[in-house]
């Protein structure tokens, strides 16, 4: 975690409203095997799973906090840090790799000032390297949320960032 993000989560976490989590927990509390739906529901509400919320879920469902963390890190669907408005994914699968994906990745790192699985302090971007996105014909490939950008070049990185910098945050 970069320092900027670490600071941000620390600043943000104390303000977290646990009653939102409670509403989700209340819905599932009596159902066996409720941990996954609770975590999914809570993530839908907060956009990620804050540490205090994980602890709160642990207390209410009577499971170890560590156990929750094990589940959260096992499934790729869960996020432990606040996520950006725009999720940039760059494919580093075999086809993309040989057609220059590493340079694309490096360029995003440089321009955004964040690394893999990190989020910019303004919460605009989250960057992720991913394995094959299933469109090898367009390699190298990048995605921003649901938009696809094929045959990526270093110049295109600038264009994408310029474009999404203009977009509203909500």
């Amino acid at each position, binding site marked *: 975690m970069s320092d900027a993000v670490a600071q941000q989560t620390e600043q943000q976490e104390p303000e977290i409203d646990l009653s939102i989590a409670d509403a989700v927990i209340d819905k599932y509390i009596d159902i066996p095997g409720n941990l996954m739906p609770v975590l999914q529901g809570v993530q839908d509400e907060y956009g990620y799973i804050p*540490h205090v919320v*994980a*602890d709160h879920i642990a*207390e209410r469902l*009577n*499971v*170890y*906090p*560590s*156990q*929750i*963390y*094990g589940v959260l*890190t*096992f499934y790729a669907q869960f996020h*432990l840090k606040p996520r950006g408005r725009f999720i940039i994914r760059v494919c580093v699968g075999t086809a993309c790799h040989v057609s220059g994906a590493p340079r694309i990745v490096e360029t995003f790192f440089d321009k955004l000032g964040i690394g893999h699985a990190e989020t910019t302090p303004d919460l605009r971007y989250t960057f992720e390297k991913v394995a094959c996105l299933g469109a090898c014909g367009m390699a190298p490939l990048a995605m921003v949320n649901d938009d696809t950008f094929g045959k990526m070049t270093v110049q295109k990185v600038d264009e994408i960032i310029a474009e999404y910098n203009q977009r509203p945050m909500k």
Partner: protein
Amino acid sequence: MVNLTIDDKQVTAPKTATIYEAAKLNGINIPILCHDSKLKPFGACRMCLVEVEQMKGRQIPACTTPVTEGMIIRTSTPDIVKARKMVLELLLLNHPIDCPVCDKGGDCDLQNLTYEYQVSANRFTDEKFQHEIDYNNPLIERDMNRCVLCGKCARICDEVVSFGALTFIDRGIETKIGCEFEGALNCEFCGSCVSVCPVGSLLARPFKFKARFWALTKQKSVCGYCGTGCNLTLGVQDNKVLTTIYDAEQGFHKGLLCARGRFGYQFINNDKRLTKPMVRKDGALREASWDEALQFVAGRLKGGNVAALSTARLTNEEFVLFKDLMKLAGSASYDHSAGYAHSALTKGLSRSFGVAASTATILDIQKSDLLLVIKTDAYETHPVVGFEINQAVKNKGVKLSILSDKRGKLGKLPGAKTLVHAPGTEIALLNAITKVILDEKLTAGTAASVAGFAELERALSDFTPEAVAGQTGIDAASIVQFARDYASAEKALIIFPTGLAYPGHNADLASAAANLAILTGKLGTEGSGVLCMAEKNNSQGAVDMGFYPANGGKDAGQILEDCASGSVKTLFVAGENPLVSYPDRSKVSAALDKVDCLIVSDLFLSETAAMADVVLPACSFAEKEGTFTSVDRRVQYFKPAIKKVGLSKSDFEIFSVLINLLGGQAPASPAAAFADIAASAPGYAGMSYAKLGEEGAFAPVDVKPALVAPAVVRPTVEQGKLALLVGSVLYHCGTLSQYGEGPMYVCPEGYVEISRADAAAHKVSEGDLLTVTSSTGSTQLKARISPRLPAGVVFAPYHFEAAQVNTIWSGAAVTWVTVGK
């Protein structure tokens, strides 16, 4: 039993055995790495692969596969050896080869197997792990670079300890063992994970770089803290106890210990140990010779008006001598801690059972159907008993009912039912439960013929669930259900802790609990009965040796009053620290001030010893031989692990010399004293050091049940005040653990726990310094906001000198306090 063939040998094994267990039973060794007898089979490491002919030579893990009739197993064919070598090569791929600096060197399963299978080269190459080492706590170092992902640490912390601090995190080749949100380890520090880790990933930091494993002398002993009676192996070098060593086969607890047993041994070689006798001259304690000090003491004892207070940590042999010494000095006033602290045992159980002992053993816990635990603290006072409870509930499906004034860890176990009652109302609650059992005729057939039945029925007429609901704060329906649960269980065991800081746990509580067991016939059979867990390692021994007031002798509280009034002139305090641990500090200090001569034998210059006229340096359990009796009356022999520190002497030697100086005749040795015990103490007949062996022996309990109507004192509620509960905290035991570095690293000071609701009402934040005031005094304590306390109740552990909790704690069942910032 099934018949099978292992390595061409015809053998038999129980139906439930795995191949690994069957082989082990028959003396055939199959290597294991991820398996431990205390844990559920996991099958992660593939070290234990064997071939089963019926499975067409397929290699299967021995640790997870159950035996079947006629199985033909081979454990070390060339193919298996090849496979095991490959497993080792793969493990060594990412594992650093830093054995020369690893504390596990010589005691590491990976290292030993590498040697055994002669893996001297690796056909594979890969990068070594680059995990950051966790040095964040002073007790356990976590170096995940050495981890073989056997999961034993995470499993033991879940399955046995029930803390769940560790887990597998991330996935695939990234998988590692870690804590919640990759934080530092902050847990119970029982060290169970350290003990089962087969490699050097988890290490005891206090032992780091102290010695190589093979250079240590290993001496078996018995833990000197609580009454569970766990067995220990002390690791000794240069006359110092450097560590405790895990022995998976040792004791009923199979080598498991709590934080105190595992990390609290440093008091033995603590620099603050007293090494020379001291006698007060011109107002100051000055070094003296043993001869001078003992002559002086003998002179005072001859002078009459003597009384004695003792810690419950002396050996049985020492208690007998101390008693003899007091008799020679003409006194019947001796006690082993503040009177009420053991009246549950001495008065309560002896009138209900005809013997001052528990009817059940710790081994009954896992054999029961239902455990009724009074106060969740059972787990904090006797942590390894807590492990037994965890395992009973989680592995054996034993039901758990809890009556307590606060919530605790036990209440989180699956299916646990907790009734949180108002402070000081536990006896009323037990009476109401008993009444339901009487009214609904849930009694055993013979109950009505037990002595006292009619009186009890009459005495309980007012204790209807409805009437008791009001004062206890528990609704009548729950009380009724609780009673039915207990009565309908085929086997049920009642467990409660007693000790210095449990004033409500008195004779009446013990009888109230005993009534339940007697009425429902849950007594005298396996998995049933009453287990009264006295605080210290030899509390039960002190009782068995009769070191408590009888025949007109005074108890601890009265002795202190007599000191204050001047009728006791000489007080001999052995290892006890009343100034810190007895209630109402100002009274204690006034009493100790007043006596003409205060004699203290102790390991340390305790707060009480600092007031003494003569201080005699005593030695620790690791320096002497003798026997301790655990809470379930297991008598265990131990011998010295090191030579006595400085000029210290055992209390046995001290009392022997004094007995001789007073004209008596002391037994020649602890063994001779034990022979006397075997001839006179009930239940000890036929025992001897030689016969006790490593397992010890249970002193049988002969129960003559009687029903006794327990008196109930209704705590007067003081409006606007908070109820102060005093008690033990997991890491500590009495005041001795203040000299064990381990416990002090993780729990260094006193505090007051306050509920979330009261914290909000009083605008208290975590760590605030609060002034807590009662009718007896006032002290300052750091606040801890705790989800386990109900509103209106605060809790403070009593062990710490600096916290002076006994200035505010009056000794009543409930002390009412105000808190302010």
